[in-house]
């Protein structure tokens, strides 16, 4: 199938946005990148850019552990209302927001760990019972 859309130089777009990346896989039909959007989420997302599709869609794969926490950002597509660059920017924005959220959660957990240390409580025990604890 012929792709009438102009070829997107995804690597240039990533460089413009100072997004670190590694090309994991590439052939004529598909290119796969591992993106370094924030320092915390080094291995957070993987971008699969399908050059064969007429919609120039790209698939973003998230590690399993994150899929349990958030809805995976998959099959973001270009449309008449949004360009590929718009979609990419939205994706980067959401990823950064998620990273910031995890930083905040991590800080709170550090505070909880400090409380446990101060009170000589066993944090591992707490983890195993935290769901029940939360219901109280």
């Amino acid at each position, binding site marked *: 199938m012929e792709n009438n859309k102009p070829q997107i130089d995804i690597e240039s777009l990533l460089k413009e946005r100072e997004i670190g990346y590694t090309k994991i896989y590439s052939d004529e039909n598909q290119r796969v990148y591992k993106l370094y959007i924030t320092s915390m989420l080094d291995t957070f997302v993987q971008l699969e850019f399908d050059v064969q599709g007429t919609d120039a869609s790209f698939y973003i794969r998230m590690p399993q552990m994150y899929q349990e926490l958030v809805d995976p950002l998959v099959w973001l597509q270009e449309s008449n209302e949004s360009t590929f660059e718009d979609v990419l920017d939205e994706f980067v924005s959401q990823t950064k927001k*998620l990273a910031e959220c995890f930083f905040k959660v991590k800080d709170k957990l550090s505070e909880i760990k400090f409380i446990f240390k101060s009170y000589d409580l066993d944090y591992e025990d707490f983890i195993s019972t935290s769901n029940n604890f*939360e219901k109280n």
Partner: protein
Amino acid sequence: MKISYQHQTTLKKIKIMTELFESALETRNIKFVKRFENDEKIDYLIQDYSLEGIIVVSKETNGAKLYINIPYTDLCLFSSYFMKFNDNFKNQFDGVLDYFLDQIQKHSNKFNLYLEMQKRSGESTTPKSPAPISPSNSLHSQPISPSTTIESILTEREIEFEKVEGNNITYNIKNNYFKPVIYVFPNGEISFCILSNTGNRISATVWDPKNIHAPSLDRILNHFLGQFESYYNAFSLIKEKLIEIKAICDYNCIRYDSLDMDLKNYTD
């Protein structure tokens, strides 16, 4: 004519000795109670000290035994002295009694210092120290059962509890975050446990009255209550943090229930 102590009847000997002790203690403004009394012996408990000073005047020993206990353990942990009821009894009486009272004072000071050090070492982790035990609770004129001690202290501290009697006596202390439980076993052992709501054991201490090194029941109970107050404070703080984490997650559409609380999987 001088009447020899040796020729006194046993009852009279006991009477003379008790009068001497009671008079001598009153003269020295030392508070005391009779814990036990019959024709065979009289058992005095000296108050106003952290430790118990015991004086037993008995027919069996034909004299008076003086020793120092840790309350409720019925165990002599420190020096004991024996005063035989003979012609020299009165002569040695004041000296021995003063020495004995001095020893109680010294041991009590050491014991208080030890408790203070324990308390200080726990202060950084224990914002609420256990309420002090009133003298009326720490010293009794009659031997009291462990259950009475436990119930008395829990009531004094306005701690709600449920008593379940079976083979053991179980005290379930009401708490929102975990389950403090006290088990009184038929063999006299008492177990102090703090369980999570899922039944995991957070801490457990067994008090064995036969262990001469064990602290008194009221002390270990107060330690236990202090510990669970401390845990309560900790869990209150932790719950605040968890609520904050949940708010962050909700705001960012992160499923809080799926969050690995250790977060190591996300960072390592």
